């Protein structure tokens, strides 16, 4: 089959299938998503990805990879395909595919979300991940920034570093924001996270100091953590919350007593995507709660919110500054098993649900939430048009810059055979897409919004297997799983920010050589973003920087392919689409911040919110300008290599 025919078919299949379901009013269910996802993945991998790998990139198992050529026993180390796939997938899987999808489905409905998940991963996502690995293995295992230095311009490397640092800052802000809101709003969540921290400390001690057997350590720590996470709602009944929930709620109330129960500051989220906003009731109206005023839309930031933010920072601080074996590594290890169990069983639940419990399997969310897809833009009001905002709200489920960074600096140096690049890089991305589809299923069957709906959906899917009595415990486990996935990445991000700051500023300002100073400084910058209050803009700005990072990676690959005289269309076209989309989304987010945060009426704590809002607008401008500089330099490099392939990549061209 010709590649052009494959492209047309792969483009039309999801549109026809999902469009047909919506047009004919067929009730969507979990099994349809599973089957459609499996078919699309198979077709895209078998007929598109493999063809490009064979005909355009021409990977060859007989060529020596950097892992073999420069084997140093540490970074460059040939690793088998299966191990590397597992490692790569675990490194790229974070909160992006979960939070992005549930936020997008809440804003625009499941139909646009699933369509972008299918089309995005087919034409852009796997291409970005796979090509980042390929460009690195064909350039001696160098990182993207080192290749940009040689291929485009020396200053591109510096700009890319600045970009990456602020991108990390946005990840930290968005992730800490959603975790804090959950910890503050759900009294059944904190116990599990506290036990996770304790088990991580004990697990590290058992494994590395007491030299206990790994299986024993795994069984003890994982079992205790899972039980603690599921126990949150124990004793809960229709009469009221259980003892653990009461204890945590009492603690929160005591903290709020510091200000006499008054809010520290107030914000408005015009999209209602903030995790603190309750889902609409059966009548479609959102109820007023202690922290949300349905009449005015005001969200109150209470002292307990700040306390839980501090808790997350302390957790991340331990992960960033303690020896890696002491805390960060055991957290990741315990977290992995919890995630595997919860996600594996939920996937099984999604397949079995239509046969065992059809009511659970049915989607409980509108296919399209905004009939005009948000394109009816009003002056002076925040905008959420489907394009470009959907494409940055769904972050890692379709395409992600984080994956390119992992692939080019880590995975590529362990690849044993060139031909492993596709199953590892492409396969990793398709697996991540499955995680996003599962999140969509969870939020769509639960019917609410945000992480709460995701957890409720996981609870329902686990209830399909273990019975209805298990739903509340399954929901608590869903919250725990969500927190674990986000926490593991957040502590890694702070660790990286600390190292980056030391490298940059440590020489000029010696105090920044101290890891405690750099960790706390990174966290203070994150607080500044958190205090803008409107979480959804923080998320969308993170999504924009994440997708833009992927676009920049693809831009680099496009220039490289041009320099070695290969066909660039399969990556150049997606790159242009993502670049333009993300740049526009940054402008829209900056506009939204201005009209809904900075020009909002005078609430409590207005000054703090304004500082946060301006910090985010400044960050938007910085990302926009950095990307423009890189694109301009890349354009000049493109023209240069069009005239004659560059000598700097001659080795790559001949390999």
């Amino acid at each position, binding site marked *: 089959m010709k590649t052009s025919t494959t492209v047309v078919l792969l483009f039309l299949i999801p549109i026809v299938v999902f469009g047909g379901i919506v047009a004919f009013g067929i009730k969507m269910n979990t099994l349809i998503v599973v089957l459609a996802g499996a078919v699309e993945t198979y077709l895209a991998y078998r007929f598109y990805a493999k063809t490009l790998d064979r005909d355009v990139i021409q990977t060859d198992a007989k060529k020596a990879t950097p892992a073999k050529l420069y084997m140093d026993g*540490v*970074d460059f180390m040939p690793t088998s395909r299966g191990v*590397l796939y597992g490692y*790569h997938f675990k*490194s790229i899987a974070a909160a992006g595919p979960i939070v992005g999808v549930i936020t997008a489905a809440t804003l625009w409905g499941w139909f646009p979300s699933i369509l972008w998940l299918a089309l995005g991963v087919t034409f852009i996502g796997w291409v970005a991940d796979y090509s980042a690995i390929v460009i690195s293995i064909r350039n001696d295992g160098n990182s993207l920034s080192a290749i940009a230095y040689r291929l485009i311009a020396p200053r591109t490397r510096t700009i890319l570093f600045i970009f990456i640092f602020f991108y990390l800052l946005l990840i930290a802000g968005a992730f800490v924001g959603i975790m804090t809101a959950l910890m503050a709003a759900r009294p059944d969540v904190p116990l599990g996270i506290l036990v996770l921290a304790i088990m991580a400390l004990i697990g590290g001690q058992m494994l590395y100091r007491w030299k206990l057997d790994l299986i024993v350590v795994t069984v003890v720590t994982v079992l205790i953590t899972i039980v603690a996470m599921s126990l949150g709602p124990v004793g809960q009944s229709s009469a009221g919350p259980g003892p653990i929930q009461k204890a945590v709620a009492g603690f929160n109330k005591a903290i709020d007593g510091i200000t006499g129960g008054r809010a520290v500051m107030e914000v408005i989220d015009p999209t209602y995507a903030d995790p603190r906003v309750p889902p609409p009731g059966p009548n479609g109206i959102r109820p007023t709660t202690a922290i949300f005023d349905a009449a005015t839309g005001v969200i109150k930031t209470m002292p307990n919110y700040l306390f839980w933010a501090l808790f997350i920072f302390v957790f991340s601080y331990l992960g960033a500054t303690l020896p890696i*074996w002491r805390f960060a590594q055991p957290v990741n290890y315990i977290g992995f098993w919890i995630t595997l169990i919860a996600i594996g069983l939920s996937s099984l639940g999604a397949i079995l649900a239509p046969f065992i419990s059809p009511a659970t399997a049915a989607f409980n969310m509108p296919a399209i939430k905004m009939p005009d897809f948000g394109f009816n833009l009003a002056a002076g009001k925040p905008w959420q048009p489907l394009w470009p905002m959907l494409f940055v709200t769904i972050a890692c489920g379709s395409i992600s810059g984080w994956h390119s960074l992992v692939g080019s600096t880590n995975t590529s140096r362990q690849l044993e055979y060139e*031909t492993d690049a596709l199953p590892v890089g492409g396969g990793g991305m398709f697996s991540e897409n499955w995680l996003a589809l599962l999140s969509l299923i969870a939020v769509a069957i639960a019917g609410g919004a945000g992480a709460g709906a995701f957890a409720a959906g996981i609870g329902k899917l686990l209830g399909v297997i273990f019975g209805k009595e298990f739903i509340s415990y399954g929901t608590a486990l869903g919250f725990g799983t969500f927190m674990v996935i986000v926490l593991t990445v957040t502590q890694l991000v702070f660790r990286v920010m600390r190292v980056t700051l030391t490298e940059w500023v440590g020489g000029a300002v010696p105090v920044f050589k101290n890891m405690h100073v750099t960790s706390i400084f990174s966290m203070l910058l994150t607080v500044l973003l958190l205090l803008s209050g409107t979480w959804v803009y923080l998320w969308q700005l993170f999504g924009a920087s994440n997708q833009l990072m992927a676009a920049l990676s693809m831009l680099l690959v496009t220039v490289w392919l041009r320099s070695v005289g290969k066909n660039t269309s399969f990556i150049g076209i997606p790159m242009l689409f993502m670049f333009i989309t993300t740049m526009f989304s940054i402008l829209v987010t900056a506009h939204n911040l201005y009209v809904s945060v900075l020009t909002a009426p005078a609430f409590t704590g207005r000054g703090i919110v304004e500082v946060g809002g301006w910090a985010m607008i400044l960050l938007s401008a910085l990302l926009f300008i950095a990307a423009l500089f890189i694109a301009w330099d890349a354009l000049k490099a493109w023209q240069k290599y069009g005239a004659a392939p560059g000598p700097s990549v001659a080795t790559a061209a001949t390999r």
Partner: protein
Amino acid sequence: MSEEKRGAPKTPPKAGFFDKVKEVLYGMAAHDMSRYAVRTRASMEHLFILITMGDLIGVPILPPYYSLRLLPYVVPNVATWKRRMLREKDISDAMF
């Protein structure tokens, strides 16, 4: 030198289904732990090579008897050590 000349297999070897599952699980759960362990070992190795550097290049710094006894343990690691030390690095190398 190409892979073919060294007599290595031309294509990746095939693994059974359960071996593949085992590999993937290991990759997800523990490969990063073993990589950190290897990195820690490499840092120690750097120190080890540093203290025996004098004898390696023929300029004794420590009392020669002790470092000469250490040399047999150092020499096998010199090749990979050189690659690690001389490789160009940037901030993104510290990321993962």
